[in-house]
């Protein structure tokens, strides 16, 4: 039988899902054990026990100096920045995308501008953000906003253009003005697409967040990783990376569930 016609059944599918993860973990702990037997003070590949100790130190014991539980404080700060950044981007991207995609008079100046602005590497203007907005929360949130808004807006503009013109004409024959047409026909059809775009942009949003935190911050997941890097504390860095990955994955999964539940009519939600 040709390979293309062979499908895994349920148990073997589960096995195939787990297999690569298990292999990666196995390879890591083999390597870690080998290095640690050679040199018990090796810091590069810490053992599971060392990492659990580090997580305990950061998550369930209060910091001796500040009295905070560092892991949770870092997580809260990072998630707050991310949520504000994503929220502002979603709103701005939606407004710009709808305006550029449905109103030709707005699209003519907006669309080339968005194309050019989306090509500016956000990290290259990070120094400008720090100069203009200071080293506080604002510059970190702005980096996320500037980094992903143009891409969101361009995607939504494209989706707005893909709405069949028949639907827009039909709405006009039903008595819609430009405003109510956008409100009741274009906007609801773009909302599920916005959630999907956000899912795709989550990776970039995390990238910008951690870059901003690494350079100028006093807390946050990215700040902590770059702080302990000086002590080669892989026992902290690795659990933090796993934690960030888990958070990102949960956000992606949550957005996917939300798309399915809130927009049952949207076929693309199943992707």
């Amino acid at each position, binding site marked *: 039988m040709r390979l293309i016609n062979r499908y895994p059944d349920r148990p073997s599918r589960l096995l195939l899902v787990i297999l690569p993860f298990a292999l990666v973990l196995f390879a890591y702990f083999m390597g870690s054990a080998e290095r640690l037997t050679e040199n018990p003070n090796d810091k590069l590949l810490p053992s599971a026990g060392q990492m659990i100790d580090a997580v305990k130190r950061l998550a369930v014991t209060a910091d001796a100096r500040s009295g905070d539980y560092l892991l949770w404080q870092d997580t809260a700060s990072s998630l707050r920045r991310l949520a504000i950044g994503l929220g502002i981007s979603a709103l701005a991207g939606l407004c710009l995308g709808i305006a550029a995609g449905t109103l030709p008079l707005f699209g003519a100046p907006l669309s080339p501008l968005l194309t050019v602005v989306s090509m500016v590497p956000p990290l290259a203007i990070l120094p400008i953000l720090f100069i203009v907005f200071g080293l506080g929360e604002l510059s970190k949130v702005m980096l996320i906003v500037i980094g992903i808004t143009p891409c969101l807006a361009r995607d939504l503009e494209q989706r707005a253009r893909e709405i069949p013109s028949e639907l827009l004409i039909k709405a006009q*024959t*039903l008595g819609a*003005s430009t405003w109510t047409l956008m409100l009741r026909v274009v906007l609801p059809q773009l909302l599920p697409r916005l959630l999907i775009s956000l899912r795709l942009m989550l990776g970039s949003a995390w990238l910008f967040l951690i870059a901003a935190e690494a350079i100028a911050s006093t807390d946050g997941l990215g700040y902590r990783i770059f702080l302990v890097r000086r002590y080669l504390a892989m026992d902290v860095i690795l659990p933090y990376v796993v934690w960030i990955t888990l958070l990102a994955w949960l956000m992606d999964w949550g957005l996917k569930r939300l798309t399915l539940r809130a927009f049952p009519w949207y076929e693309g939600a199943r992707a």
Partner: protein
Amino acid sequence: MSFITVNNVWQQYDDQVVLERLNLNVAEGEFCTLVGASGCGKSTFLRLLLGQERASRGQILLDGEPLAGEPDASRGVVFQRYSVFPHLTVLDNVALGLELPRSPLLGRLFGSAKRQARDEAAQLLDKVGLGHALDKYPAQLSGGMQQRLAIAQALIMKPRVLLLDEPFGALDPGIRKDMHALLLALWRETQLTVFMVTHDLSEGFSLGTRLLVFDKVRVDPHAPGAYGARITYDIPLNSDRRTARAAVDALPAELAGTLRIA
């Protein structure tokens, strides 16, 4: 008295003439079917009537007034595809037509006004045979049911003109027959003037009270775009229906009303 008057209308894109020297008078309540070869301008003519495009020359009068240059609530339309909103349920697809004109700020009604709009929409949907599917989304409906929905959606606005662009082109023959019966019943019941583009000649003959054939009279083989199509045949049809319609119109208003409801 002519309801729609087409005065020497030309339509051309760059140097491609699509329609030329179109003259037409249509009385209120006529059912015009538009037939002709592909690309001969039937759909272009329909878009002119809809206000989606403006004629390059000449003018179209609706009830003596020049036609509005953009689509509005006076002319309903049903396309072959993409006529209904995928994000609204069947009921809301029709109720939307009642909500949009009454709520210029939000395009949405609330409370008793919303209930009333939905009741009205449900009544009409019952009439087109969709009473059992009010809560479904269009993607869950068959092609025929989607077109029933599109027709109901257009009729809730009580337009004076209904424009149909090959509305049944994608349907099975059996379903198409049901749709013909539905369309004729609705046409008899309302004062509608219908323009319907079709590729199916027999459909054109059996439904219309007037058949308009579009064709190019002159063809220059060296410049295919030089001449446009005209109406080459204008055939009155189904005179029984036409006279029945005229007789009902001649009756006193209250009596005619009861007849229509019956």
